[in-house]
């Protein structure tokens, strides 16, 4: 009996339902949105604390015994992810208060927002492979609707690619689950891990692992499966982009890490080699995409792709230190990236554009925003002593320790290019003087916009300062992942 495990799923669901029932009262919905995320964050922290003290926790939903019923299972990694979901949710919910247009709010923005969180948290907590599929779908459909909510042309064009490619991933995932059940007769992941050891079909097993790799790889936006992301992430309102950037691809990575530390560990050589190659290519193609862009949100979208490569690097290296690096990196990148999207949103508010060529003068007029940009931006580029530095250090450390020099070189080179493209934003939007013919300021801002950005920026600093204990936490999480 452990209600903590179900709360991160139920709280968003109940919030969503409540928001659904007060459909026409926007202020109430907004308040509910914030309250719901606060509660989710609280539940996540309580869960993290409980697991830190007592170890991995499971809950048999419906009281049906393991492995017959659906098991919810939370280790430190799950709990960290739930906390991150709560943080990003809170930031985006508060930001939405000050930025979401009334029309979108009238058409279910807040219920969708929380349905999305529900799916995300469900995916983090489930210990059942088919249940994971269900949560993926909850998350997906909610993200589909959020993506196109508003029906602007760009949203629809991007949305179609987003929907198609993600459904392709779902179909692959479903097929893989079907085969898995057909071969083992099991759905519970612990049970599966046990039974897969006795399947004497290495070819089939590896092929199956590849199906999972591709299905989750599409959702995680790795090379060469990432196309849906840069095509669509810049089209919805920035609060939605921030929410997506913080959570959606990360669920894909989470699933990859889960499946490849738990289920497919027999024939690791082929798979880990593939994962490392994918990791390197993802970093490089993503960052080059970012370098080519001159629109803030597009640039940041490509960076999401690039950063996913680092997470995969941790998985591909497959040592406790490397996985700990991936976990740490996850926390870092989720917060930093959401902060950057929100900063972009504020810049858009102030200048009426996301185009770097037309932006400018923000350093002079809004030094506060400059600081709030610089912190997550430099963190993303891995500059010390911010969160990104320790995340990078952990991965570089693990890579050098295992003598995987190529991937380390790529990781370091890409961080330089990350710095380059971040400073491109800095130079163009902040340092460059505003031209005379450029658009006038578009609108005002409110504390609801600044508060989440400031909070997230502060977190990237805090994570850097508290890197020691947080890395210990990551290490424990990695050890749990590896069943140590």
């Amino acid at each position, binding site marked *: *009996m452990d209600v903590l495990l*179900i709360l991160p799923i139920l709280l968003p*669901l109940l919030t969503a339902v409540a928001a659904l029932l007060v459909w026409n009262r926007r202020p109430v919905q907004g308040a509910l949105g914030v309250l719901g995320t606060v509660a989710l964050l609280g539940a996540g922290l309580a869960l993290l604390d409980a697991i830190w003290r007592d170890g991995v926790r499971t809950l*048999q*939903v*419906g009281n049906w015994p393991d492995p017959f019923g659906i098991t919810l299972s939370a280790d430190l990694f799950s709990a960290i992810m739930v906390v991150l979901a709560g943080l990003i949710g809170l930031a985006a919910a508060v930001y939405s208060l000050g930025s979401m247009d009334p029309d979108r709010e009238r058409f279910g923005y807040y219920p969708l927002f929380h349905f999305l969180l529900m799916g995300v948290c469900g995916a983090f907590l489930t210990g059942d492979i088919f249940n994971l599929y269900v949560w993926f779908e909850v998350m997906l459909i909610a993200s589909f609707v959020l993506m196109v909510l508003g029906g602007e042309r760009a949203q629809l064009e991007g949305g179609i690619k987003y929907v198609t490619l993600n459904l392709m991933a779902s179909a692959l995932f479903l097929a893989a689950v079907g085969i898995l059940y057909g071969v083992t007769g099991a759905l519970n992941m612990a049970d599966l891990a046990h039974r897969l050891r006795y399947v004497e079909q290495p070819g089939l097993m590896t092929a199956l692992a590849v199906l999972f790799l591709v299905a989750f790889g599409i959702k995680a936006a790795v090379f060469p499966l990432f196309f849906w992301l840069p095509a669509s992430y810049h089209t919805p309102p920035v609060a939605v982009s921030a929410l997506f950037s913080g959570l959606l691809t990360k669920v894909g990575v989470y699933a990859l890490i889960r499946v490849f530390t738990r289920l497919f560990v027999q024939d690791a050589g082929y798979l880990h080699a593939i994962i490392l190659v994918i990791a390197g290519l993802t970093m490089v193609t993503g960052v080059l995409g970012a370098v080519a862009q001159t629109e803030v949100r597009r640039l940041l979208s490509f960076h999401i792709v690039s950063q996913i490569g680092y997470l995969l690097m941790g998985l591909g290296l497959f040592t406790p230190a490397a996985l700990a690096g991936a976990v740490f990196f996850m926390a870092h990148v989720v917060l930093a990236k959401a902060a950057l999207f929100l900063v972009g949103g504020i810049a858009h508010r102030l200048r009426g554009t996301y185009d770097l060529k037309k932006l400018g003068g923000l350093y002079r007029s809004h030094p506060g925003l400059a600081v709030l940009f610089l912190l997550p931006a430099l963190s993303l580029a891995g500059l010390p002593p911010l969160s990104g530095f320790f995340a990078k250090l952990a991965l570089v450390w693990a890579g050098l320790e295992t003598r995987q020099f190529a991937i380390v070189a790529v990781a370091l080179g890409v961080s330089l290019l990350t710095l380059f493209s971040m400073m491109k934003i800095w130079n163009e939007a902040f340092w460059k003087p505003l031209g005379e013919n450029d658009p006038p300021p578009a609108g005002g801002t409110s504390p609801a916009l600044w508060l989440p950005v400031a909070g997230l920026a502060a977190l990237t600093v805090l994570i850097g300062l508290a890197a020691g204990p947080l890395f210990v936490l990551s290490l424990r999480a990695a050890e749990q992942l590896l069943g140590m």
Partner: protein
Amino acid sequence: MFSLILSTAVRYLFPLMMLFSVFILLRGHNEPGGGFVGGLVVAAAFSFYAIAYGVPAARRTLGVDPRVLIGVGLLMAVGSGLLSVLQGQPFMTGLWAGIALPVLGKLGTPLLFDVGVYLVVIGVMLTIIFTLAEE
């Protein structure tokens, strides 16, 4: 002429279909059927009603916005699971009344859950159908 036949037919069919849907819903635990298919039957009934008498009339007959049905259905489904939590059991543990009714068999929270599914499906289908019809 056609619409007359249709509306007459619907007048008699509509209550029948509603009854049938409840039947499907309730027998689902023991025979093929259940909340999903039951909900679809209701949705079909209302679709016919809307074709015969128009969407506004169908909406009036329904009485509530279908969106509310979705919310209530979800709430019922979750609530059925939360009852066991209140009793200190894991989420969604089935709770059963001691007595068994003739048609239904035993009464329990899974049945409540299925009713939640039923309501959600009605709400979802009608939201889609009404919105499309009003295009």
